[in-house]
């Protein structure tokens, strides 16, 4: 299958990165929902984030396409639209900020409650 000068790889090996992205998101959701340790929950969130970022990069991938820099592309070679790459970079930066904030909350929770176990951190129930 191809659109313009680009082709889409629909073989099993071409789908591999999508499968990895799905597995990463599934693992992350599992960790977030079933793990009782705050740090492990943060790891779960970063796993989901990595899965989504991988998916974003894959959406923008065109086999045979060149990076959109004029001096790098051969004459006549198609260039890819750099939007998904830009999105992924933004998303990684945002992910860094959220992870840092989550971990600092975890540090202060540990300082106040003396534990990271969510079953023991329950002043805000009901």
């Amino acid at each position, binding site marked *: 299958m191809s659109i*313009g000068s680009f082709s889409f790889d629909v073989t099993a090996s071409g789908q591999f990165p999508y499968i990895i992205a799905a597995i990463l998101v599934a693992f992350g959701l599992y960790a977030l929902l079933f793990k009782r340790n705050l740090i492990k929950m943060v790891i779960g*969130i970063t796993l989901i984030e990595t899965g989504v970022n991988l998916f974003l990069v894959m959406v923008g991938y065109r086999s045979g396409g060149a990076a959109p820099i004029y001096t790098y592309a051969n004459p006549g070679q198609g260039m890819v639209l750099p939007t998904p790459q830009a999105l992924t970079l933004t998303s990684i930066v945002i992910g860094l900020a959220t992870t840092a904030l989550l971990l600092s909350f975890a540090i202060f929770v540990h300082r106040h409650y003396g534990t990271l176990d969510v079953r023991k951190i329950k002043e805000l129930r009901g």
Partner: protein
Amino acid sequence: MNTLAMHAPVLLVAVPLLGAFAVPLIGKLGRGVRDIFIGLIVAATAALAGLLAAHYFGGAGVPQLYVLGGANGFAIPLPSGLSVPIRILFEVDGMSAFMGLITALVTLTGAYFSFCYWRERSGGNMYYSLLLLLTAGIFGMELTGDMFNFFVFLEITSIAACGLIGFRVWLKKSQEAGFKVMALYTLSGLFVLLAIALLYGQHGALNMAFIASQIGTFGVSIVDKIALGLLLTGLAMKAGAVPMHMWAPDAYGEAPAPTSAILVANSQASLYGLFRVLFTIFGVGASIATNAWILIVLAVLTIFVGVTMALVQNDLKRLIAFGAVSQIGYMLLGVGVGLVRRASILAGGGSLVDSANALDYGFVAMQGGIFHMLNDAACVGLLFLASGAVIRASGTRDLNKMGGLAHHMKWTTIFFVIGAVALAGVPPFNGFASKLLIYQSAFKVSPFLSIIAILSSIMLLAVFVKAFQGAFMGSKTGLPEAGEARPGMLIPMAVLALVVIVFGLFPGFFIDTIVTPAAKALWLGRDAYIGAVLGGG
């Protein structure tokens, strides 16, 4: 159109954003200078929002476009002849302008209330920095016409909101709340991002109008449906709809009182995103009727669970927080009923313009739901500010430990009562005006919906009677700090109380001037929204 009105959409984001980063520097000059600076920034932001709204509601009536990086040539033509808009743009239609007004009202009163409320010696710079950052993010969510920008602004509000909830690190509960809220906000943000990636993969663009026109041309594909499901989940989670509401009472309850109201405005901005997705991007044919029913189920659950949970609270702020959660349900109910009716009109080949002019019950439900957003912001804002004054005076949030405050704080008591009665939907206050529209139109879909809505309003009144009795009634207390709130705190409350009363006494005027254009922008403004970007209309 004058230059200021033309650039208002981008200035609404830029002014508070630059203000947020300037606050730590200005703060070095002393507290007074900093407060004046923030007062100016917030007032300028509110004036810009007012200008934007005046421009739309006062005549233009067509979506206003602001393209970053030059107005000309914002689309790239493809070899196939199709042109794809790639520039980042802001697009302001009636709904965006309406939401801008709500945010302006809440941030203005919240910030001015904070000047007297914030007595701690340190932390003020951080507090105002985060407050302005949150304001910038909320305005960005409401004005942007680009899916990915929407995600970026969503994350800005998430980070700023959680900063506000948890930056008082010496408070034990705020840290627990901060972690919980941040985890759920991040999860909802990632759902939205995944949906955006799917939409990009399907349509090759991030522009909302372009995606909407693609869906209008090619129909809703499987990928689009998955993206819609993810957007619905993510945005409903961030708006605090039951069963994803667990973070909301923690967030509203643990944030400093003046910012709790801004967090409610943040939830409403997520609701706005949800409506934009359902009406503008996916608003074709009858294919989305199922989603409308999901919205109605979420609404009924939210109304009922929110009120029931509020009944059992003994913490004043947490009680109001659950009340605020239940109000999100009324907005969802109004717009959900509208969406069901809109789908059936489209399926039957009816005209949306005629139904809006004939005040079809679906359109009335939309008016009610949208009007209730503004009313809820005013009432809940008033209640949170009053609770802030009460907590400052009594030094506790536990209803069992306070009492007799009516002897010391006459004005605060009056404002609290106005807010509580209005939120419970008692005439002649504004909550009644919007809730009546929702009751009578939801009745047409199913009497059951109206019964739940009315019953929950009555229960909400019981909740506030309990809160009022606990905090204000009883004999004089020996609380050392008990005394009337300072004028700097009373004036913002008075402004909100005035809004509550004026909107309650003259609902017809406000429905005609601002609510109907906003409802029409969603109900029938899809083509105009797309046409403003892609031309043709």
